[in-house]
């Protein structure tokens, strides 16, 4: 690790000003990804601006009936918050499916969105990687790519975004608020991550020097679920995940949100599938058709084609589960508002 200067910022304007004045500076939140990458030599900031003490650690209702989550709220506090658990249960489930209890106590919401891929070539500075060193090549395309992207990737980079939280946020139409020296701004999460194209090193649409201040969730269907598949039962990154929210009336899908994790360079909002589902019967046939429509765009490599099957199966399983919760079969069942099973 190279030597660096350190400053603790006390307010948002001060933090932004410090970064603006120093192109070699980076914000330090929980540090769970940045410090790791500094040790690996992937990141070499000249100055860290510690933002953990900024007053951005609150969660509150918005006027529209949504929820605003401060950027330095820890993953643990987010997952445990009663309003999140009550109204956005898939977000709680997604956060709890990620990392470990220790890491969730450290990691922040803003940092989660900005975390880098765990692709084994990206994290090893002795290897080529277009994301880390533009133009050096992508060895994953012909090398180890079992956990590489099947959607939206390019031959320049097939890395996946590792976030679980982000997948739920994508399903909930989250909006990211930020601050720069010029003022405040907003980006919908769907516009937050840039397409891979031939510039995989450019990951987000955040203006240079911007500090994420909050993530806002509009009201959303309450019945939601996050399911994650990984190569061990816990403490591992996803190889495929689904966040879904569903409203069913009279056996017909009235509202649906669907997002996929570990399939693309960003949390993948499955809008094609959603379009197929709206107004369709809430049954396994529709769910399969929707997944097929979404995954028709998939272009897997030889070693990750299983992800298409996995995501199809997960889509059907999670939506079926939500549909049964929405309109339980059997005479004794009743619609339990807010159940997050």
């Amino acid at each position: 690790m190279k030597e660096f200067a350190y400053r603790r910022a006390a307010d948002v304007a001060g933090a932004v000003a410090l970064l603006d004045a120093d192109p070699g500076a980076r914000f330090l939140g929980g540090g769970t990804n940045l410090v790791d990458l500094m040790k690996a030599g992937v990141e070499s900031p000249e100055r860290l601006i510690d933002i953990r003490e900024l007053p951005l650690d609150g969660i509150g209702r918005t006027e529209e009936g949504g929820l605003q989550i401060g950027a330095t709220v820890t993953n643990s506090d987010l997952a445990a918050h009663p309003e999140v658990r009550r109204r956005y249960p898939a977000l709680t489930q997604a956060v709890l499916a990620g990392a470990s209890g220790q890491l969730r106590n450290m990691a922040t919401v803003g940092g989660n969105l900005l975390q880098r891929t765990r692709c084994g070539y990206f994290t090893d500075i002795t290897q080529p990687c277009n994301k880390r060193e533009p133009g050096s090549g992508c060895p994953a395309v012909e090398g180890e790519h079992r956990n590489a992207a099947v959607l939206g990737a390019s031959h320049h980079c097939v890395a996946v975004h590792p976030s679980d939280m982000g997948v739920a946020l994508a399903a909930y139409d989250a909006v990211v608020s930020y601050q720069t020296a010029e003022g405040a701004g907003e980006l919908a999460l769907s516009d937050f991550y840039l397409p891979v194209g031939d510039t995989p090193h450019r990951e987000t649409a955040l203006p240079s020097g911007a500090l994420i201040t909050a993530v806002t969730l509009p009201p959303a269907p309450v019945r939601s679920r996050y399911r994650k598949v990984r190569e061990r039962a816990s403490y591992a990154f996803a190889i495929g995940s689904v966040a879904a929210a569903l409203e069913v009336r009279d056996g017909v899908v009235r509202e649906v949100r669907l997002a996929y994790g570990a399939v693309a360079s960003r949390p993948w909002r499955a809008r094609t599938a959603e379009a197929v589902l709206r107004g369709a019967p809430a049954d396994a046939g529709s769910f399969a058709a929707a997944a097929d429509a979404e995954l028709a765009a998939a272009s897997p490599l030889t070693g990750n084609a299983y992800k298409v099957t996995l995501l199809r199966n997960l889509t059907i399983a999670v939506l079926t589960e939500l549909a049964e919760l929405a309109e339980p079969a059997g005479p004794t069942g009743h619609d339990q508002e807010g159940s997050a099973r």
Partner: protein
Amino acid sequence: MITSDPTASQTAGAIILHVNGEKHALTVDHRTTLLDALRERLDLTGTKKGCDHGQCGACTLLVDGRRSLACLQLAVAAEGREITTIEGVGGSGAGQGAGPGSESGGQGELHPVQQAFLEFDGFQCGYCTPGQICSAIAMIEEHAAGWPSAVTDDVHPEAAPQPLTPEEIRERMSGNLCRCGAYMSIVQAVGYAAGARHTHSGPDEGSAA
């Protein structure tokens, strides 16, 4: 506004660390992690370095009462926080006063989680053990505070509290790897210390018989 020492060099700073109820003034290279500061500067070596990248949990300690990983925490950024290491979780002296080669582990009072680890043999080589114990102590509090986990069926805040079953313990402790594979006895120890039921007859819903 900045709060770090302006007289220090750009890449090092004078800080005060609050560890186990004591204040320690030291000047640290900004690169120094809390883990290395404790181990190399304060001779508090109970907190172990297993991977140095947040992938094993051996360096787990408590920061402001919450379990955290010392390897991903910069020491300079830990200033002002209340740090509790394995040496500080028991009664006074439980982990103190044992130099190299000492046969005693100190004679202070053990934390109930430590006592349970001893009696259930919740370890083998012992290297992940301080991290497992610190993690378990905080995890029991997290559960008591009503935090759900990834295996909690219903995360709704009005749902009935999820008992700390072996399955819940396993999920909540998964950030602490044990390569010796002492997981069975660790879960027994944690369950016993947490006052969970069924600990004596084995940690699980059913037995293999």
